[in-house]
C-alpha cells in the first residue's frame, strides 16, 4: 500500500462539541477565503487623478528602468544588492531582478557569479540545481571556502549530515578555524552531540572569537536555536538579543523570537512586534497563530489574508512555502490532513528541526503510522535531541 491516510478529527478534552463547531467554522472560513482568492478581483476606476495607487520603496524607485550592467563585476555587485534586499525585505521579486542582472553571465565560471547564482537557487528552493552548481565549482576550485559553507548548509538542511560534515571539513583549508568550528557545531547539534556543540559555541561566544558582524549573528542564532532545542527559552531569548545587536531588523531573528514567544504564550508580544509587518507572509502566519490564541479582534482578518497568499502561491504553481502552510493548517485552521500532506511534501525537501517537529506533530494528530515511523526513524538514526520532539513523543495518543 502506498502512503495513505484519512482525515481524523481528534476531539480534545476541553469542550469537544464547541471545539468541533469551531473547526467547522474554520473550515468554511478557509474554503471561502480560498475561493475568494482564486476569483479575480473586480476592477474599478479610482475617483480622482490624485488618488495614490501604490507607494514605491526607494529600492523600487531606483529600479525605474533597470540599466544593464556593463561588466561582470558590476553585475555581481548589483545582483548582490538585490539579493540582500530580497532577504531583508523578504521580497522575492528582487531575486528575479538579480537573475536578470546576472543573465548575460549565467554560464560564467567565475566563483563569485557561481556562488551568487547558487544562493539565488537556494532561496528559490531549487536545491538540486544549487548543489550541482556548487559541486561543479568546488571540484575545480576547492579553495572557495564559502562554497563549502553553502554546500554544508544545504546538506544539513536536507538531512544529509555526513555530506554536510564533509563539506565543513573540506572548507577548512580556506576558512578561519572559528568558521569551521561553527560550521561543525551546526551539524553536531542535530546529530547527537548537542551538549558538545552547545559548550563549544558558548565558549566561542564568551571569548568573543567570532568575527564581528555576520559571523557573530550566525553564532548567536545557532546558540538561540540550540537553547530552544534544549528547552531553555530564556537563554534563547538572550542569544537572540545578542544577535539582534548585530542585525536589529533581521527577519529570520524576528521570526525566531516570535516563535519563542508563541511557545511561552506571549501572544501579545508577537502581535506588537509583527503588526507593522502585515505585508509579509511569515509575519501573517505568526499573527494568525497569536491572534487566534489570544482572541484578538483582527485574528480572522490575518487568517484570511494568509489563506489568500497561500491560494495565490498555489495558483501560480510556486508553492515553496510548504513548511509554513503545514504549520498554518496544523495550528490555525485545523486542516490536519492537509497539514500532514504538506509536512510530508516539505520533508522531501527540507529536514531541519522545524520540519521534523511539524512532521511529527501532524503525524500524531492524524495518527498516521507511516509518517510517525518516518519521523521516529530519523530521530533515532541521528540521535536527535530536542525538547519539542520529546514532548510530542511523550504525549502518547
Amino acid at each position, binding site marked *: 500500500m502506498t502512503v495513505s491516510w484519512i482525515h481524523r478529527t481528534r476531539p480534545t478534552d476541553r469542550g469537544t462539541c464547541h471545539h468541533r463547531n469551531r473547526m467547522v467554522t474554520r473550515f468554511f472560513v478557509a474554503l471561502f477565503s480560498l475561493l475568494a*482568492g482564486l476569483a479575480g478581483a473586480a476592477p474599478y476606476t479610482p475617483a480622482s487623478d490624485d488618488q495614490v495607487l501604490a507607494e514605491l520603496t526607494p529600492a523600487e524607485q531606483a529600479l525605474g528602468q533597470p540599466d544593464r550592467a556593463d561588466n561582470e563585476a558590476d553585475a555581481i555587485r548589483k545582483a548582490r544588492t538585490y539579493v540582500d534586499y530580497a532577504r531583508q525585505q523578504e521580497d522575492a521579486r528582487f531575486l528575479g531582478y538579480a537573475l536578470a542582472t546576472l543573465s548575460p553571465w549565467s554560464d560564467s565560471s567565475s566563483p563569485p557569479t557561481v556562488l551568487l547564482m547558487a544562493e539565488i537557487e537556494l532561496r528559490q528552493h531549487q536545491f538540486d540545481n544549487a548543489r550541482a552548481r556548487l559541486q561543479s565549482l568546488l571540484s575545480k576550485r576547492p579553495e572557495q571556502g564559502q562554497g563549502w559553507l553553502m554546500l554544508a548548509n544545504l546538506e544539513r538542511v536536507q538531512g544529509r549530515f555526513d555530506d554536510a560534515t564533509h563539506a565543513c571539513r573540506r572548507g577548512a583549508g580556506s576558512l578561519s578555524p572559528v568558521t569551521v568550528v561553527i560550521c561543525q557545531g551546526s551539524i553536531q547539534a542535530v546529530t547527537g552531540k548537542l551538549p558538545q556543540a552547545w559548550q563549544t559555541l558558548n565558549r566561542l561566544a564568551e571569548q568573543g572569537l567570532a568575527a564581528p558582524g555576520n559571523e557573530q549573528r550566525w553564532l548567536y542564532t545557532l546558540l538561540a536555536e540550540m537553547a530552544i532545542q534544549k528547552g531553555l527559552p530564556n537563554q534563547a531569548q538572550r542569544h537572540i538579543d545578542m544577535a539582534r545587536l548585530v542585525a536589529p531588523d533581521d527577519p529570520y531573528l524576528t521570526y525566531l523570537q516570535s516563535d519563542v514567544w508563541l511557545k511561552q504564550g506571549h501572544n501579545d508580544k508577537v502581535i506588537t512586534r509583527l503588526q507593522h509587518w502585515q505585508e509579509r507572509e511569515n509575519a501573517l502566519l505568526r499573527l494568525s497563530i497569536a491572534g487566534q490564541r489570544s482572541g484578538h479582534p483582527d485574528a480572522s482578518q490575518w487568517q484570511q489574508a494568509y489563506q489568500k497568499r497561500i491560494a495565490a502561491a498555489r495558483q501560480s504553481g510556486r508553492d515553496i512555502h510548504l513548511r509554513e502552510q503545514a504549520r498554518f493548517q496544523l495550528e490555525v485552521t485545523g486542516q490536519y490532513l492537509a497539514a500532514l500532506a504538506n509536512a510530508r511534501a516539505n520533508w522531501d525537501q527540507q529536514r531541519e528541526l522545524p520540519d521534523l517537529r511539524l512532521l511529527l506533530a501532524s503525524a500524531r494528530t492524524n495518527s498516521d503510522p507511516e509518517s510517525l515511523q518516518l519521523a521516529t526513524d530519523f530521530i533515532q538514526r541521528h540521535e536527535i535531541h530536542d525538547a519539542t520532539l520529546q514532548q510530542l513523543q511523550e504525549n502518547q495518543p
Partner: protein
Amino acid sequence: MKRLIVCLLLVVSELALAHKPSDSYLQLESRDDSTVITGQWDIALRDLNLILPLDTNRDGLIMWGELLGQQPAIASQILSTLTVNAMTDRQTADCPLSLTGLQVSDHVDGRYAALHLRGNCPIAPQFLEVDYQFLFAQDPEHHGLLKLRHNDDVLTATFSDGQRQQQLSQDSVWQSFQGFIGQGIHHILIGYDHILFLLTLLFPAVLVWRTGGWQPAPSMTMALGQTLSIVTAFTLTHSLTLALATLGIISLPSWLVESAIAATVAIGAVANLLPRFFPRRWVMAFVFGLIHGLGFASVLADLGLTSSGIFLPLLGFNIGVELGQVAIVMVFVPIAYLMRQTHFYQRIFVPAGSLSIMVLAGVWLVERLA
C-alpha cells in the same frame, strides 16, 4: 570578502521569502462562433513600473493620473508582448489586440493595473494559441497566469520564462483527466493489498464447492458469471465510498482504514480455506469494497484535489482503478480457467496461496494496528 562569506551562511535556513513573486493575471473569453476575443489583464503596478515610468513626478507614489497618462504607452509597448492566435484545424490567424479601457484592481500583494482587451480575429477560434513575452527580460521569475473561458469551458495555463507559448484547447482538461486515470491505474497496480484481496476472491471463481471439495466450474459461462458478480460488487461499493470520502461525507482515521483493509484480505483468504462458511463471494466483495474505497480515497486526497474541481478527477481516478482491476482480472482469470481442472490448482495453489495471503495480511494487520 569576509563579509561575503558569512553573509551566505544563513542562506538556507531562511529561504521562504514573504512577498509573493511577480505574477500577472490574464483572463480571456472566446467562442467558437465569434471572431471577437475579450479579456482583462491585471499587471502589478510594481511590475509595470519596470517597463514604463509610472512615477513621472518622482515622488515615490504612483497616482491614478500618472497611470492614465501612460495609457498610450501601455497600448503599444505592453500589449505588444502578448500575441493571441485564433486556430482551427486548418488555419492559424493572429488576433490583433487593442486596449479598450484601463482600470485598477486589488490583489493580495497590492494594486494592479487592469487592462481591458479586445482582439479581432479573422476567423472564429476553435482553440487559441497565446504567446506571452511580458517582463521576462526584467524578471525571469515572472509568471503569467492565464484563465481562458472558451465557450463554456475554463482552461488555465501558466507562462514562464521557459514556457512562453501555450496552445489552449479542450485537451488541457482532457489531459488532466487522463492524468487522474493514470493515477488510478497506477494505484491499483502498486497497491498490493487491493490486488491480493481481488485475487483471493477470484481464486475460486473458476471452481465450484461441492460436498467437501473443489470442482472445476463446468462452463466458461459459469466461471465468467462468478468473476463478473465479484468484480461488479467490489466496484459498486468501493466507488461509492471513494466518492463519499473524497467529498468529505465520510471521514475515518487512516490507521482504522488501513487495518480494516488488511483484515479484509485475511478474511478473504480464510474464506477460501473454509469455503462452506462463505458461500456467496460476491457478498464479501460487496461489503469489503466499502472499506477499500476509503483506502483509494486517501490516495486521491494525496494527489492534491481542490474543492473547485472534484468531479472529473474523482471520475478519472475511479475509471483508472477499474481499468487496472480489469487488467488484473484479464491476466489472472484465463490462466486460472485453463488450470482449474488440475490437481495443482485445486489442491495446492488455492489452499497454499490463500494460507500465505492470510499470513501476510495477518502481519499487515498487526503492523497497522501497532
